[in-house]
């Protein structure tokens, strides 16, 4: 009886149910992990004192050291052969997932060249705007936020080069501050950000608060699995040098079950999940059911909040 119910659900859903009894899930929530501080970067940021204090009035989920890491290489955002090359390569695949899920959710025509016309979308942790610009070209009203001022400057300069993207609103701020300003968006997208924040549960609550009624939330990150350790840390950082060493901390990765749990607690129901796989022969990324390394989750705001 339970088995037949199981089989009718998508595969990743079954994985979730199977692993729920695993005690590691509950004890593995990121808020209980010590915040790992990597080697000090060359940018001594004078504002670094405030972020680890949870007692402050607007607790920030940022990790200052993580910000410093990104500030150091911010000049190379739009160099498609530079440190952000894997992100540039993966971008069309992420956009394909976002396009199909958002078109279905908001009942937009998938064959239109500008399907997001009229939708307000926020790109949390936009960096240089690699995701924001294509979203704007697809017709969305885009707001991009990032905590690193340099990134916002670069994003703005690059977006101004193309009239279709020069309407993007870029702000150097955090999700929490926008929640305080009571901004709402039809779709809140935070890709490859949650593994760099200090408190992912708080971060998810902010994302949910920014999502309008019947809106969508999309989060992508890396899975905390043996395979992701081998691919994203050992292979990508140390062997292939795709990413600078220390870009990712394996202990801050979230498993799909954990992400689904904390999003659920933030009133976001995860509806779809997909993985990204890289084919070394063609050099291309594609969407797949394999969520063992990179994965992306699409969720909708719970309309009846308990």
């Amino acid at each position: 009886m339970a088995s037949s119910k199981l089989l009718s659900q998508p595969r990743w859903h079954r994985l979730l149910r199977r692993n729920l009894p695993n005690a590691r899930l509950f004890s593995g929530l990121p808020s209980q992990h010590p915040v790992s501080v990597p080697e000090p970067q060359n940018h001594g940021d004078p504002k670094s004192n405030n972020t680890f204090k949870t007692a402050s009035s607007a607790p920030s989920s940022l990790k200052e050291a993580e910000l410093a890491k990104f500030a150091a290489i911010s000049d190379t955002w739009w160099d498609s052969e530079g440190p952000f090359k894997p992100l540039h390569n993966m971008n069309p695949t992420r956009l394909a997932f976002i396009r199909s899920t958002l078109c279905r959710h908001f009942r937009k025509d998938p064959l239109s060249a500008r399907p997001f016309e009229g939708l307000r979308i926020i790109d949390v942790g936009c960096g240089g705007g690699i995701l924001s610009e294509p979203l704007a070209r697809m017709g969305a009203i885009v707001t991009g936020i990032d905590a690193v001022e340099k990134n916002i400057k670069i994003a703005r300069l690059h977006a101004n080069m193309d009239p279709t993207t020069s309407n993007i609103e870029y702000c150097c701020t955090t999700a929490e501050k926008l929640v305080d300003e009571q901004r709402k968006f039809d779709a809140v997208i935070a890709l490859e950000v949650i593994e760099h924040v200090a408190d992912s549960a708080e971060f998810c609550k902010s994302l949910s608060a920014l999502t309008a009624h019947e809106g969508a939330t999309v989060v992508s990150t890396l899975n905390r699995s043996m395979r992701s350790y081998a691919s994203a840390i050992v292979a990508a950082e140390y062997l292939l040098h795709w990413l600078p060493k220390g870009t990712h901390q394996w202990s801050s990765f979230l498993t799909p079950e954990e992400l689904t749990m904390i999003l659920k607690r933030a009133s976001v129901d995860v509806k779809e999940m997909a993985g990204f796989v890289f084919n070394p022969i063609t050099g291309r990324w594609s969407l797949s059911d394999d969520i063992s390394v990179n994965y992306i989750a699409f969720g909708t705001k719970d309309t009846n909040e308990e």
Partner: protein
Amino acid sequence: MNRILASKAVSNVYRLRIPWRPFSNDAACPNAGNPETGSEAQQYDIAIVGGGMVGLAFACSLASKPLTKHLNVAIVDSNPALGRKHFIKKDDLPDPRVSTITPASISFLKDIGAWQFVEQHRHAYFDKMQVWDYTGLSYAKYNARDADKEVLGCVVENKVLLSSLLSHVQDTDMLKKIYPSRLTSMSILPNSSSSEVGSTLSMTALFTHGRLAKLELEDGNSLYAKLVVGADGGKSRVRELAGIRTTGWNYTQNAIICTVEHALENHCAWQRFLPSGPLALLPIGDKFSNIVWTMTPEESSEYKSMTEDDFLKAVNHALDYGYGPHPTSSILGSSDLFSWFKGGISSSTSDCFEVPPKAVKLASERMAFPLSLRHANDYASKRVALIGDAAHTVHPLAGQGVNLGFGDASSLSSVISEGIAVGTDIGEVSLLKKYEADRKPANVTMMAVLDGFQKAYSVDFGPLNILRAAAFHGAHHISPLKKSIISYASGELRLPLFA
């Protein structure tokens, strides 16, 4: 960032080899507001330079896809025929310039909606082919039924194809404008940032920051485009202006083409490899056939200038007993030798050798042109993509040239459509390189195969002749091999022998 931009700017400028004229000096600059210069420059999404078969097929392909049919397209070609909607009459004599369209290209043309126009004019499907050589050692007969198909291909005059594609493009809703002029210069500047804010950047400002390419035409018009597609043939001006190098060599061969008439209808394609090159006889409908005769340049001037009767005699002789005997069914023993290879008997294995129908009348002038192999080292650079003969020219011996071009047009329009789906700027090199990665291996393989044939047949050496005969024999009797050859030549297999 500035260092990266500067080094890229230097490499771009050296590669482009284009003098960048500052706007103050440019007399034809539209922004100067000078009323003598004529119409203002317009901005397009895609500028297709070259309105030949492949360029127009690309335009039709864009018009047939939902994500690209809203694009604004300019077609630049100085051919006056493009300005007229119908430029062929049904009772015209067949033009000697024809193309053999493979089944894969036929389905592409059907998908884009242009094939229906072709079927209203003269065209000839053929389902049989016979290939043999001058040594008389062996022959191969191909039948479409061997590969479970209806036809091996269709022979269509180029002007029929062109007119069909043009009519279809004019019929579609896609925004397009034909510029009846020739391209003189093209400039593309490196990307740079703008300190201006807002969406009010003018076309010239966008061009200065590398977001648009500027094209200047012979009649003084200019236009801007996000992407320039070079479909302007083997001597592509776009390829030259973009600084893309080519590799290749000239064959010491010319091809003579003409149309002949028979007493009866011909439904088979014939090709005989002669010592100085192949002679092909292709049906084009209504008892007419097209001749493509490859020979040395000296011979070609001789054959072009001889009288019509002498030429017809020479053609019939070359297809019959000229240069060597008729092949018997096999000299390498009976077909039992290959019986353990056979994966099922194909119908044409038992067909015996036939002599092609005699040509009774010459129905057109004889044209001659030199043959060469040329391949562009890159198919794409910033804001430029090459398709068709601009990217590759091949030997006509297997009738593949324009079919490779149609493959390019189809692939590029798919890549652009996928790019628009995910909000990419269509002039981005990374997107265009996807098109190159799709087409280059297939094109290079086909070119290698054709070049291999050309070289194998240019030598008259006993053991090599026997080897070639054995190859023919194998192709004729080994059914899986024959099926594979037919599928590859029909455009269904991207790489030969890999099913």
